[in-house]
């Protein structure tokens, strides 16, 4: 039933996409298209939620006569798919609601409206797919439609470049996945997931598939060092699409990884987890360090997605480690933490990108150095953006903290792992996780503080205005979700139980029955956390302090110029900027990671030239990994280019040589 609803929802979305091509130019197109997307996403979300909570012995499946004639298109919805569908459709619904207001400012609606529903359909299909062919087609469809959305404003600076890098990386990722599925299907070509599940690949094949999936799904998710396209492409798209790409599409990639590695690939080897953990730890820290160096608000958010993907992969890696050593319960804890973070991140990252979009419409600026003081002009946007910042910085009592807390609890179970490599790696990864959490807080103090607090740095920031009510409704509903998931995490953990049980054979204990709605992963004497009470205590003690002081002492207030030690400067340029805020951290971490250098140029006394400080940063991953490859391809194609300008005799001899070579190969081939 739910499967039929969601599949017909996909069909409706594709129909809306076709409709949008026809009516895209008319003024009424925006409410029709986004309204339809909102309705369909909400219905699909309800369907997915129903599937997630309703326990079935056998998952729903359906085979449609599409695609390869001898295979057909298989679709299936199990608990894992239902969870990811819920994440996808919740994000899609929020983005559509936001776009009802935001989309009206779109200058080129025909470049956005048709692709947006198609993109949603593609993401739904990837999660539903139950054979390799359907999965890859949906995956590629999702990539191409999102690429079209990235290219919506292709005339703007750097956007065409972002689209190009994205296209190259996406094709590369799909190629890796194609090879992975080829290896899994084996020579008989059993492309249905059922057939793949039944066949047990040899250790070598499984290892190869793991690497290919890490490259294929990892590049889409934004795992370091395959993340390079992400911070270019995500900010280039319109903001509601950025939110979807960062908050939801990266989760579809995580789904691909989980589906293949946890479900299709069979029992894991112990060393797989080491690879995943190491990649996760590096991704988390590198992502947040990159984010700290940015001053473009949307790019900062995009880099920060890389960090969160790292946290998710740490959880997945821990789960693999426990699963490989038969510690099913600990594996369930780690996997729950990772999946909960998938949900949490999709909520607050969408919220933050919406906030970035609202700032962009209000001021026309993405560069934080040109913003400031927006809390006065946009108080409601500022409030919800602050909620998102607190949530993503993993601070209690909001939701980001819960998933990181669970990850830490999983790490504390890992000394029981027998293998020595893991014994040494896991504490290091724990330290990286702690470091990234602390740096994330710094990053979002910067993002919120420079954009919304202080004094406006430009006229554009001074003239900002509050955003429309659809956008506000979308942001407020996501902010509420951040709070609800933070104070009642037990409900969300219980909802994940069937998905987790299906993958590692065990699930976390039922949380809804715990007194006071606490969460207790193992036992109360070991660890427990109650977001609800922490939230209530904070509210009560804050109110108590406020009312006591106001009543018993003083409630007088006077406005006066800022004190600033007696020398307030009228120019807003004397405030801390995004770059100067990050300077201490750049000095501590950046000198190694980015080879950061500061060159101060101080003219001699009497000279009227201004003093200058030049900061030099190097993206070492790009310079050492990608630049040589790009350079190699460029110089090779330059050489091969000569083949286009040969004489007819040279072409004939080339053909002759090729034929001889082929014949020789045939003759020698055994």
């Amino acid at each position: 039933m739910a499967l039929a609803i969601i599949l017909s929802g996909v069909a409706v979305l594709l129909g809306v996409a076709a409709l949008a091509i026809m009516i895209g130019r008319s003024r009424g197109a925006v409410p029709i298209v986004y309204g339809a997307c909102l309705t369909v996403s909400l219905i699909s979300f309800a369907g997915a939620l129903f599937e997630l909570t309703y326990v079935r012995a056998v998952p729903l499946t359906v085979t449609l006569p599409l695609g390869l004639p001898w295979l057909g298109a298989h679709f299936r919805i199990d608990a894992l798919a239902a969870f990811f569908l819920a994440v996808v459709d919740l994000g899609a619904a929020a983005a559509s609601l936001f776009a009802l207001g935001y989309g009206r400012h779109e200058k080129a609606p025909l470049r956005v409206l048709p692709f947006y529903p198609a993109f949603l359909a593609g993401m739904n299909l990837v999660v539903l797919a139950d054979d390799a062919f359907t999965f890859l087609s949906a995956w590629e469809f999702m990539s191409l439609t999102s690429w079209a959305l990235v290219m919506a404003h292709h005339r703007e600076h750097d956007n065409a470049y972002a689209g190009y890098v994205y296209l190259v990386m996406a094709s590369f990722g799909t190629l890796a996945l194609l090879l992975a599925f080829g290896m899994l299907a084996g020579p008989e070509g059993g492309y249905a997931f059922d057939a793949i599940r039944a066949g047990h690949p040899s250790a070598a094949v499984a290892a190869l598939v793991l690497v290919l999936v890490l490259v294929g799904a990892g590049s889409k998710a934004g795992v370091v060092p395959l993340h390079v396209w992400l911070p270019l492409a995500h900010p280039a798209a319109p903001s509601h699409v950025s939110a979807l790409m960062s908050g939801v599409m990266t989760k579809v990639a995580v789904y691909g990884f989980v589906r293949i590695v946890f479900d299709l690939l069979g029992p894991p080897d112990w060393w797989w987890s080491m690879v995943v953990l190491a990649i996760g730890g590096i991704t988390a820290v590198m992502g947040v360090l990159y984010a700290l160096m940015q001053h473009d608000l949307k790019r900062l958010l995009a880099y920060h997605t890389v960090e969160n993907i790292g946290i998710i992969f740490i959880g997945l890696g821990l789960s693999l480690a426990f699963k490989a050593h038969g510690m099913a319960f600990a594996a369930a804890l780690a996997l729950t933490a990772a999946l909960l973070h998938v949900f949490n991140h999709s909520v607050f990252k969408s919220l933050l990108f919406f906030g970035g979009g609202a700032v962009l419409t209000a001021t026309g600026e993405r560069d934080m150095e040109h913003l400031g003081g927006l809390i006065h002009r946009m108080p409601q946007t500022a409030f919800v953006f602050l909620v998102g910042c607190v949530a993503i910085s993993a601070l209690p009592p909001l939701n980001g903290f819960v998933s990181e807390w669970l990850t830490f609890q999983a790490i504390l179970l890992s000394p029981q792992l027998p293998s020595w490599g893991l014994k040494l790696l896991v504490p290091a990864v724990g330290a990286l996780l702690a470091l990234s959490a602390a740096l994330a807080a710094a990053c979002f103090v910067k993002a919120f503080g420079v954009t919304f607090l202080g004094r406006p740095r430009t006229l554009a920031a001074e003239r900002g205005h509050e955003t429309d009510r659809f956008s506000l409704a979308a942001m407020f509903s996501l902010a509420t979700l951040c709070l609800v998931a933070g104070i009642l995490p037990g409900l969300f953990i219980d909802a994940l139980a069937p998905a987790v049980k299906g993958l590692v054979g065990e699930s976390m204990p039922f949380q809804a029955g715990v007194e006071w709605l606490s969460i207790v992963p193992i036992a109360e004497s070991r660890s427990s956390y109650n977001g609800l009470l922490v939230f209530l205590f904070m509210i009560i003690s804050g109110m108590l302090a406020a009312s006591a002081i106001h009543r018993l002492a003083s409630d007088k207030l006077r406005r006066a110029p800022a004190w600033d030690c007696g020398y307030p400067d009228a120019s807003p340029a004397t405030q801390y900027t995004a770059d100067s805020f990050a300077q201490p951290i750049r000095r501590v971490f950046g000198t190694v990671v980015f080879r950061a250098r500061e060159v101060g140029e101080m003219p001699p006394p009497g000279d009227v030239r201004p003093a200058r400080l030049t900061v030099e940063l190097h993206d070492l991953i790009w310079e050492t990994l990608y630049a040589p490859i790009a350079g190699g391809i460029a110089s090779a194609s330059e050489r091969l280019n000569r083949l286009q300008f040969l004489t007819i005799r040279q072409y004939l001899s080339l053909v002759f040589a090729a034929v001889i070579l082929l014949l020789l190969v045939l003759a020698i081939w055994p």
Partner: protein
Amino acid sequence: MIFDTAVQGAQMILVLLLSPLLTGFVRKVKARLLRRRGPPLIQPYRDLVRLMHKEVVLAENASWLFRAIPYLIFAGVWVAASLVPTFRTGLLFSWTADLIAIIALLGSARFFLALAGLDVGTSFGGIGSSREVMIASLAEPAMLMIVFAVALIAGSTQLSTMAGFMISPEVGLRVSLGLALISLMMVAIAENARLPVDNPATHLELTMVHEAMVLEYSGRHLALIDLSASLKLLLYVSLIACLFAPWGLAPQGAGLQALAIGVVAYLAKLAAGGLLLAVFETAIAKMRVFRVPEFLGAALMLGLLATLLLFVSRSL
């Protein structure tokens, strides 16, 4: 149940009332060590009362957030401080937040304080916030590593269970605990903006971190922030006492006599902690801001080493 509630309430009020005294005590000892007479012990209380009765002078472009932040910070720190066992373990609400959550609550308080530094848009506020987050970015992971080390030994992140384990004979002398203790003391110094990381008594703006952030606060807002700072200092001393000197802590369900012993022991521990801090601060000079990462990096490495040792062998 009623008794437990009373004990929890007593703890909340005790930490609130004692924290300015601890600050005053540290100041007094420091003054005496320098052969000054120093302010009376109750001076911090007088300051708080005076500040609370003054009107707030708010910068013209300060936002609603700036006015809400003192209450948020106070709430976060007070909730955290009420959950650390001081004179009795097994507090009524100790299961609400384990040690990781308590650290994270302090992180929330710091997050908002750093935002307050940026709100008015002055350069001093900015310098304070940006340095504070730099310090926090190393102190927080170090703290978590310490939590890991102690939690691995005690098999729990619940403070009551941890304290109960630390007092039992099973603990013994361990290398990892020693490393964790040194690391925790370094983190506590940094977190509370004490010498050599930050100078709580400086009047030179460029050398301050914490004081620069709160430069624009006045009246009751400043009183709350000062009180939160005192509470945080008390919290760290209580935490060190509860984990590494849990002697005298009354167990859950203990009678009034044990509770009295617990309170006396707690006061003695606070005095010892304050005395040590004052001696240390008098003996050392403030370090340059960019030496702080090395100091905290050492704390992080010690914490990581302690955790690694425990991963290698549970008996180390």
